[in-house]
């Protein structure tokens, strides 16, 4: 008997399911994904339903009730035995291609921590004038770039729409939580590549507070379905969207047509900078941490590093660092292996491209994985920023001084996002000032590149604030005020993930040998 997973969610009391047709997609192992075929009439009822519930319930409960419900829903997900998490564990690796270890460990245990009640970004609107220099916020620092010029303002959005990209798990949950904090009804288009988690998370809210959940509709529809898309835009006060260049063009057109403001988070590039001070006896620890950034989500995120700039002049040279990184990639890949979508072709492409360069005598050295799970390339031929083939393919490039980097990346400034750093305190602020000026928005300690802290801006805007105001200020953050302390904590976290996994492997090996002996 197979298992059917609903990829949609809305108030079941609306009684619209009877009038809908559904499609069923077999994803293997007896699992099928059930998705509705929407009509405008049904969508209208769903949108009216979330608006009604907002008016009658959400607007009349106190923020403590909202926070409490979010906290309880999140607690459910932190429990490995929670039924929603069990379903997700079974289904998500099949639909996303990520490994179960990645989904469980990096996804649930760490990424979902962003929306823990105590981490929520509830500090209101910041005054840019108070942040002309990097100034404390949360446990890090932020700085405001640019002059305020409000292009959109609505402090009472009734309906907020979200179009989620499929590369990272969990965005749908983040969006639901943000909207509830500002009393908005929510519709979410879940990605075709991963249509499962959004509905599961909404159901977990339903378990703790059904009426709060009924202000949410999770709507799986194809990106090319313009009838549905246009109808939903026409009913929204603002739409937040994540996606690539094609999504940006298509959605901006619809937003213009219906005069709906769009808070877009589009294609971005991220990279790592290692200062020479950390390329000493700590270099292997730094490599350990960097390997986690490269492995997390198989580099599919906008915050995943595509290049590493390593400064010369340390006791460990950039090429030696590349070798250390290769060793750590192997260990980390055992703890967080790739899933079914291994991108082997991309890894092989990278391998042959750089193998040729190495053979031709270019200052290039490749450090491959025996099974093509990952690839580290030392590339001393150019310092130009080049996109990675992804899937754990990373280049290490030497730079004489980290302050040369802002100039190198300036041409792609508007596409820059996260910069993973291992830079000592006294050099970090001047570097952050310059890289922020070049266009980067999030400066994070290495190994935390894919772990946004809830107080941090996202692509230069605060995730809550941008839902009611767009003001042209670009906020740049540094995720810590004490990088050495952050590195120490990150190392503990990284080792706990790896150790836990490797212990499990050992246990499984023992069991396997015992079974073989018994036979």
């Amino acid at each position, binding site marked *: 008997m197979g298992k059917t997973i609903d990829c949609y969610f809305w108030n079941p009391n609306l009684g619209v399911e009877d009038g809908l047709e559904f499609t069923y997609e077999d994803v293997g192992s007896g699992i099928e994904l059930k998705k509705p075929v929407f009509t405008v009439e049904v969508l209208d009822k769903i949108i009216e339903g979330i608006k009604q519930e907002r008016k009658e319930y959400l607007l009349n409960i*106190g*923020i*403590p009730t909202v*926070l409490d419900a979010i906290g309880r829903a999140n607690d459910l997900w932190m429990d490995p035995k929670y039924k929603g998490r069990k379903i997700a564990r079974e289904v998500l690796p099949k639909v996303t291609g990520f490994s179960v270890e990645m989904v469980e460990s990096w996804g649930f245990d760490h990424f979902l921590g962003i929306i823990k009640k*105590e981490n929520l970004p*509830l*500090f*209101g*609107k910041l*005054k840019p004038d108070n942040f002309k220099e990097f100034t404390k916020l949360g446990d890090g620092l932020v700085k405001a770039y640019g002059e305020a010029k409000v292009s959109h303002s609505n*402090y009472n959005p009734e309906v907020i729409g979200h179009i989620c990209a499929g590369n990272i798990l969990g965005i749908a949950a983040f969006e639901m939580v943000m909207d509830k*904090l*500002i*009393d908005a009804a929510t519709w979410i288009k879940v990605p075709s590549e991963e249509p499962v988690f959004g509905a599961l998370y909404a159901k977990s809210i339903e378990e703790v507070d059904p009426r709060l959940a009924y202000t949410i509709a999770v709507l799986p529809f194809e990106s090319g379905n313009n009838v549905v898309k246009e109808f939903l835009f026409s009913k929204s006060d603002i739409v937040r969207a994540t996606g690539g260049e094609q999504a940006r063009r298509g959605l901006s057109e619809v937003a213009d047509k219906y005069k709906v403001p769009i808070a877009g988070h589009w294609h971005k590039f991220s990279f790592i900078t290692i200062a020479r001070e950390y390329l000493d006896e700590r270099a292997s620890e730094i490599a350990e941490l960097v390997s986690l950034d490269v492995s997390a989500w198989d580099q599919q995120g906008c915050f995943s590093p595509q290049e590493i700039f390593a400064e010369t002049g340390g006791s460990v040279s950039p090429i030696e660092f590349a070798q250390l990184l290769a060793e750590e990639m192997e260990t980390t890949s055992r703890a967080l292996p790739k899933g079914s979508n291994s991108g082997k072709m991309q890894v092989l492409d990278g391998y042959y491209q750089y193998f040729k360069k190495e053979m031709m005598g270019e200052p290039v050295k490749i450090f491959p994985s025996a099974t093509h799970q990952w690839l580290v390339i030392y590339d001393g031929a150019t310092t130009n920023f080049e996109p990675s083939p992804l899937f754990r393919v990373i280049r290490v490039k030497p730079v004489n001084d980290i302050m040369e980097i802002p100039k190198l990346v300036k041409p792609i400034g508007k596409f820059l996002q996260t910069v993973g750093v291992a830079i000592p305190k006294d050099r970090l602020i001047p570097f952050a000032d310059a890289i922020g000026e070049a266009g980067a928005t999030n400066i994070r300690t290495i190994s935390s590149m894919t772990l946004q802290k809830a107080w941090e801006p996202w692509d230069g805007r605060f995730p*809550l*604030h941008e839902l*009611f*105001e767009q003001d042209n200020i670009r906020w740049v953050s540094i995720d810590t005020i004490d990088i050495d302390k952050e590195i120490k904590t990150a190392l503990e976290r990284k080792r706990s993930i790896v150790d836990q996994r490797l212990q499990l492997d050992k246990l499984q090996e023992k069991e396997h040998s015992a079974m073989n002996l018994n036979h």
Partner: protein
Amino acid sequence: MVRFPSDEWIGIFKEELNKNKIYEEVAKTWEGDFLFVVTPDDELKKEVVFYVDLWHGECREAYLVKGKRKAAFVFKGPYSNWKKVINKELDPIRGLIRGMFTVDGDSKIIIDQAKAAQELVNTVSKIPVDFEG
């Protein structure tokens, strides 16, 4: 009817808050004093500042600040938004999250005390007021 903002209003607020048993219960762990700053807008010409000392469910002091005064928390917003709070049209915590008010001090501590904040508003809303402008 008392005028808001005024010395008389803050005096009544203190009396009423100290009669509020629910507040006493939900704010029993709260320790900290506030400056409530009403900033001018179309309807209010000059900034008004109230000092309110809240301690374990009790209001120990509350008055209109005439000179300079410091407090652990400064909760600030325009007069029109204060009016909405007094009329129970705006939850101050929601106002804070949306940026309609700002706070100097750890906003997380205030948000953890959201139930106490609600009771402050419930008390405020029971005082019949005459608004400036």
